[in-house]
Structures are given as C-alpha cells and as structure tokens.
C-alpha cells in the first residue's frame, strides 16, 4: 500500500484531522459516482491532489500497475456475467452487453480512484499524525462507553506494523527467491506454490513482533488505564477550511450529477 513520503507540500502541512475528513468526503464521492461527468470530476480532483501533494505520477502509476491482475479480473467478471439483455454476444452463461461493459469499467475506475486517494493520504501523513487524527474523530464514541484512547492505541499499533511487516515480508520473499522459489515464473501454479514459504515466516514474524511489543510495553509499565487525553488545541488554518470545503463540494456535486 505504500508508506509515508516526507515532503513539504500543502498536503503535508495540513492537519491529519482535516485530511481524514476530506478523505471521507472523497470516499463518499467515489462511491456515489456513476456518470461520465462524475468520473471526469474525480479525475480532475485526483490530478490536482497528486500535483499538490508532490507525489510523482510514476510512483502512483506503479501502485496501480501492481494490481493489474486484480483489475482485469473484476473487469472481466463484470463484462461476462452481466444480464443477457441486449447482449452484443452470448454463449452459454457468458454475455457481453454494453451495460456489463459500463459496469466493469465503472467498478475498476472506482477502485483505482480509491487507491489513488488513500495513497495520497498515507503518503502525506505520518502514522502518528494519522492515529492522532483518528483518535480525535473517534472521541464522540466515548459517549457509548468505548475508550477511544485504547481504540486509538490499537489502531496506532496496527498502523505502525504495516511498514515493519511489509519490509519483513519483502525480505523473506527475496530470501526464498534466492533459494529458488518461483515467484518470477509466469505460471500461476508455480507462483501459488511459492506462497507458503512466504506466508508462514511472515505470520511467525508478526507473532514474534507482537510478543516483543507486549513484553516491551509491560516492561515499561503499560497498564490498561485511561490513556491521557491528548491536548488537542484546534488551530485551524485557512488551508484546512479550504480543503474540507473543496472535498465536500466534490461530494455534493457527485450527488447532483
């Protein structure tokens, strides 16, 4: 999924909370989109965001290209298994219809946009800032007796483990390739067989890390008490307001389109 990329852009300077709120607006917008004009609007939004965040197009392209098999599968599923009405071509249970084509393209584009926007969020926000923001946004849950401090703690552990484990998985994958595992082979069967040599060590690594972390936390005296509420002084900048309003606008336009 990628990691934080240090930088100096407007997005990097924006508060985590703001970005998270904007992200939820955009998320809604993406899910609501179903017209050509809507997708064009998303396209413009994504382009502008990438430019503002200072993430290379190449980098973004790589993230998307990595999932090309996944995209192809969703697209083909939608293309072949849509309703047989008005089909261009039919055979047994397979029907290719304009509606199926549209549906397939729509789903793929939505997933691509989700990927792009979450990549921007993660690339411009440090894990610490992201969990801090979650903690603030989850505060209202306290009403229902859920301790947001602990919830945020769990989330922060989860978020911080992503880069650690992905690094570890990468190492193990390379180690098994060096021993002759057939990831590089074009055959799906070979690749499938090489899954276990990576999955097992990664799971073991996850358990090991979790154990270490639990011990380290205990050794430093972590108890299940009320986590000190972070002092959150809201110092709202113009750019925070602009960002929230703009993303909200995208969402509302999407509803209207």
């Amino acid at each position, binding site marked *: 999924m*990628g*990691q934080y*990329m*240090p*930088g100096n852009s407007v997005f990097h300077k924006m508060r985590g909370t703001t970005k998270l709120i904007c992200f939820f607006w955009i998320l809604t917008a993406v899910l609501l989109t179903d017209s050509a004009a809507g997708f064009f609007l998303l396209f413009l939004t994504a382009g502008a965001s990438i430019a503002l965040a*200072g*993430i*290379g197009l*190449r*980098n973004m392209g*790589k993230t998307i290209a990595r999932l090309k098999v996944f995209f192809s599968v969703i697209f083909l599923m939608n293309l072949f298994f849509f309703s047989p009405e008005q089909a261009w071509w039919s055979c047994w249970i397979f029907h290719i219809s304009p509606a199926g084509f549209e549906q397939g393209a729509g789903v793929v584009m939505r997933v691509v946009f989700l990927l792009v926007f979450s990549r921007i969020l993660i690339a411009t926000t440090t894990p610490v800032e992201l969990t801090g923001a979650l903690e603030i946004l989850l505060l209202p849950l306290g009403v229902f007796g859920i301790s947001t401090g602990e919830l945020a703690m769990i989330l922060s552990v989860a978020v911080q483990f992503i880069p650690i484990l992905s690094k*570890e998985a990468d*190492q*193990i994958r*390379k*180690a*098994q*390739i*060096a*021993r*002759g*595992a*057939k990831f*590089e082979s074009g055959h799906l069967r070979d690749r499938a067989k090489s899954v*276990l*040599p990576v999955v*097992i*060590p990664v799971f*073991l*690594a996850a358990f090991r890390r979790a154990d270490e972390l639990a011990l380290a936390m205990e050794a430093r005296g972590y108890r299940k008490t009320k986590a000190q509420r972070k002092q959150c002084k809201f110092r709202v900048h113009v750019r925070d307001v602009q960002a929230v309003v703009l993303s909200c606008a995208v969402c509302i336009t999407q509803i209207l389109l």
Partner: protein
Amino acid sequence: MSIELNQISFCYASHTSYGEYALREVELFIGDGEFVGIMGHTGCGKTTLAQIVAGLLPPFAGTVKIDGYDINKKGYDRKLLRKKVGFVFQYPEHQLFETTVEREVAFGLKYGGLSWNERMERVKDALECMGFAFERVRKESPMSFSGGEKRRIAIAGVLVSDPDILILDEPTAGLDAKSRSSLHKIIAKLNQRGATVLWISHDADSLCKYADRIIVLEKGKIVMDGPPREVFADQTKTEQYQIGTSQARVISEMLQKRGFKFERKPITYQELLDDLCNYFKKGG
C-alpha cells in the same frame, strides 16, 4: 565466477520523488574466487549493493554481469542465477517455514531436477558442514531449535545448492563468539574450494583474517577498495567512514608508540605474533 558492475545506480521507490540514491554509479569488478569484505556504516548501501549483485533488485541504471552474462537482460535464465548465487540474509532464521529440518534444507533443490537420493546426499553434506548430525536432526521441526541453531539450519539451506557465488549480509549479527568463528571458518573453507565470497560485516578482525580485499561504501559510493592492510593503514579514512580497525592493528599501534619497530603493519593476531617473535629474536 566473476562479478562485474557497470555504472550501477539505484533509488528506492519511496525516495524517487526527492532523488535520494541508495547507490550512485558504482563500478566494481570481482574476480573468480575472491573473498571480498564489504564495510561501511549503517545505511551506506551495502545491502542494496548485495541484492543488486544477486539479481534480487533490478538496478535503475547500469549493468550487472555474472560470469560475463548480463543478468537483467531479457532471455537470461534466472533459474541458473538462483543456483549459482547463494544469499544469506541478515536474520536467515526468519525464513524457516518447513515442518522438518530435512525438507527445509532441501527447499533450494526442489527445482534442480535431482533424484531423492541425490538431494538427501546434498542435504546431509550441507547440514554436516554446518555442524549438525544429519540423522539426529533430519526429522525435527526447525522451529524447535535455539536461535543460533536455527540460523545454522537456514545457512545450510543456502549452501545446499552449492553456490559458486556466496553473498552474506551480516550473518553473524547476534551470534555467540563460538558460532561466529565456526561460521567464518566454514565460509573460508568454501572460498578455498573456489567459491567467490561477498561478506558484509562490521567485524574488522575477521575480515582482516579472511578477506583478500575490502570495499568500503559511503553514501552509495565506493570510497575505499584494496587489500585489508592498505585499507586499514589509512587511519583518517577508517575513522571518517566509521569502519573501525582490527584489534591487532590497534595493539601494534600502541606498541609502536612505545618504541617497537615493525617492518610491516600487522593487521591479524598471527602477523602481530610473528612480528613480535622476529623482533625479539633479532633485538633480544
């Protein structure tokens, strides 16, 4: 088997946007059968270099030739590369996954087209080379061993394919003194039998003892390259690049300050001992 790097540059994907290179324009030739030590402080690019040599990372620019063939060219047989080049990662025990030691070690032979008997013969050799009694451990679970033993099992799993080039990325980190020196001896033996060895290490003492040549990296560039004696003779540079120096060299410096005269600059205990003996024989 020789290794040739031409103008190798590399940059990690997450660093592309701010142009921080992990390696820049590295030129390197390593001849058949050399024992090369790679040094440099953390983050200077040692692991990246090693993984590029092993074909585990594709370089951004430049070519890697193993035995004269460009390994990143289309049509190059990667299977051959995997067989020729063995790579021991920093914590090799983390890669264990099989149910028995025997299957774990044999994993690298899975696609070699060998018969069961031939494979078991190789597994036996590799495990015995790493100091295990084959019959006793073959059916055990690799997870049931101690950390140091697991590491030796994992290394056996690399040695089993009898690689011509052996790359080791700080394999002794966290090992006890005895396992460390026995690993050094095993690798030196493999080197004598003809394997080219690339050893990444912070341990100047052992590199002085075994390596023919030491390469020092700094910010993705090769800044020193030569026999251990030459590299460690340059004290300003070894301090600048934070690679330390061998204990024997430190002791000989101290003795020199007290008036001892050495004909050469001893870098291993053996040399130091020889020189001291000579000194006393001559001067009394």
